[in-house]
């Protein structure tokens, strides 16, 4: 029985099954909540490819989320492009941008890498804010429609919910396969010991660039499904503090596990919803949580529970 529970597919499959049934009995409020969690989880998981699996702290992932969101928003508002094309376009645009930025950034280590990604991110924020003819500036783009996909009408909440659920699950599955592939293994090897990886003959810069590209594309896809969900995109999506969210969420849930960011997203969104009912100062408590976690649980919640249950040996790090 223990081995069955330990199998990495049981828990996610079970949750997925429950989520598929959700619209049958839950009010719309919960559908929106789950959709928000799913989008945030995809964004955080894509960021964690860099943070947890590659050991790269990128403080500019909001750029891709924002670019993905704006691309879809602009294309859908033009009403000349199908939903599928819009989503794929956002992936392509984000891919190009992340390759360009990543190419420049991967030459630097840790803190300087973070600041460089942050600087580029702020430049894009400034662009989004000032290029009013394209982005609408501070007002953003409103009234983003939910066009049909494969003939299915996505306007009802339950329908868009299923779309987000399926889309995010597929993206997460792809990311999982990437992590489990030789490419993913090498990324982790580079994270743990870059010098040794280099002596083995690997071009670590290329692998890091690859990770950066993947994170950018999937961050963009998260933004792409977010745009019709929210209905409005604003430049604030590209502000540097928005880049901190997926980092914190990955930290919260556990950055060395694949589902850590998902766990972190669930906790983050639920805590935000729950705390805001009692006080408007939810950021204060979230900040306290972060400080507490970094000191006492650097492996996050997902790391902590298996350790406590004795399922996993504590890493002598």
């Amino acid at each position, binding site marked *: 029985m223990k081995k069955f529970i330990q199998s990495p597919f049981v828990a996610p499959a079970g949750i997925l099954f429950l989520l598929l049934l959700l619209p049958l009995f839950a009010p719309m409020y919960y559908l929106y909540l789950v959709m928000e969690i799913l989008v945030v989880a995809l964004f955080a998981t894509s960021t964690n490819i860099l*943070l947890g699996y590659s050991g790269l*702290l990128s*403080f500019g992932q909001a750029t891709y989320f924002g670019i993905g969101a704006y691309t879809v928003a602009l294309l859908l508002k033009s009403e000349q492009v199908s939903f599928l094309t819009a989503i794929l376009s956002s992936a392509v645009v984000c891919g190009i941008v992340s390759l360009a930025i990543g190419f*420049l950034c991967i*030459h*630097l280590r*840790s*803190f*300087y890498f*973070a*600041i*460089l990604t*942050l*600087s*580029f991110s*702020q*430049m894009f924020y*400034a662009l989004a*804010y*000032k290029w009013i003819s394209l982005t609408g500036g501070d007002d953003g783009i409103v009234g983003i429609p939910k066009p049909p996909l494969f003939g299915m009408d996505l306007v009802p909440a339950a329908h868009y919910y299923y779309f987000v659920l399926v889309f995010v699950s597929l993206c997460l599955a792809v990311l999982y396969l990437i992590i489990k592939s030789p490419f993913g293994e090498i990324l982790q090897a580079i994270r743990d010991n870059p010098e040794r990886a280099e002596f083995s003959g690997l071009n670590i810069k290329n692998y890091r660039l690859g990770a950066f590209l993947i994170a950018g594309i999937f961050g963009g896809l998260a933004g792409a499904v977010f745009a019709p969900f929210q209905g409005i995109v604003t430049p604030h999506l590209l*502000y*540097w*503090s928005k880049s*901190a969210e997926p*980092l*914190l969420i990955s*930290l919260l849930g556990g950055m060395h596990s694949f589902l850590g960011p998902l766990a972190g997203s669930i906790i983050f969104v639920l805590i935000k919803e729950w705390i805001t009912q009692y006080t*408007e*100062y*939810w*950021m*204060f408590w*979230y*900040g*306290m*949580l*972060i*400080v507490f976690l*970094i*000191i006492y649980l*650097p492996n996050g919640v997902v790391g902590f529970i298996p350790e406590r249950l004795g399922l996993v040996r504590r890493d002598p790090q």
Partner: protein
Amino acid sequence: MDLGYIFSQLLMGLSSGMVLFLISSGLTIIFGLLDIPNFAHGVLYMFGAYITYYFVSHVVDGGFFIGLIAATVSLAFLGALLEVLPLRRIYQSPHALQLLMTFGFILILEDSAKFLWGAAFKSTKTPALLAGSILLPGARDFPVYSVFIIICGFTVGLILWLVLYKTKLGKMIQAGRSNKEMLSALGVNVPRLYTVVFMIGSALAGLAGGLASPLIAVSIGMGDAIIITAFAIIIVGGVGSLLGAFVCSILVGELNTFGTHFMPGLAMIFTYILVIVVLLTRPEGLFGKKLQ
């Protein structure tokens, strides 16, 4: 556009550069010795502004100057609190976790400020003593208050230089940057030194906030924008270098002032371009030590 105008703009740039210098000097000293990128430095600046605002609005005579002193001193204590309780536990952690923890501080302190003073923008009036303007060569008016800021900036810079290079404390700080174990072996209480340095940096940020409060709207988010500029400055100048912070603060101040004149709205991009160029060509900054 005449020389008189250029001269007055140069002075404006110098003045805003001095505020930036007060923030970035603290940041670079902290980063230089403690090896901690203190993301929360911006909110410390914000707190300084709010504390000064409080005294200006509640104390009639000399409220501003009392507020400045109060901001500087209380931020020193706040800095001590942050360093001793949570920060000191993660000195061995990777930079990523340190950055994230200081980001946690930002969340905590921003909401605390919102709780204490509310979310509405506040403003401090320029103290009567420093109001008005002087006539520059070239027949341009220039605010007295900005002159005051320039004087403050240079004074603080001089004091910092004296402390760092002419006192025992300064020698300890410099020594600690190269070899902490040796310093400890020589009998210096290194943890206490760290706390003192963090207090100095925080106090400087508080002072900067107080000085800036009559010039810009005092708001919860005022630290968010300036922290990025501050990091840009210390990177371009070289982490840990006081001279680098001084020179680059002036450089960025001038870039912003003239940039706003020529390309309003996109002025901030110049700073980012500068950072990107420096990081790609000379990552140790203009005055920094070569990275291994």
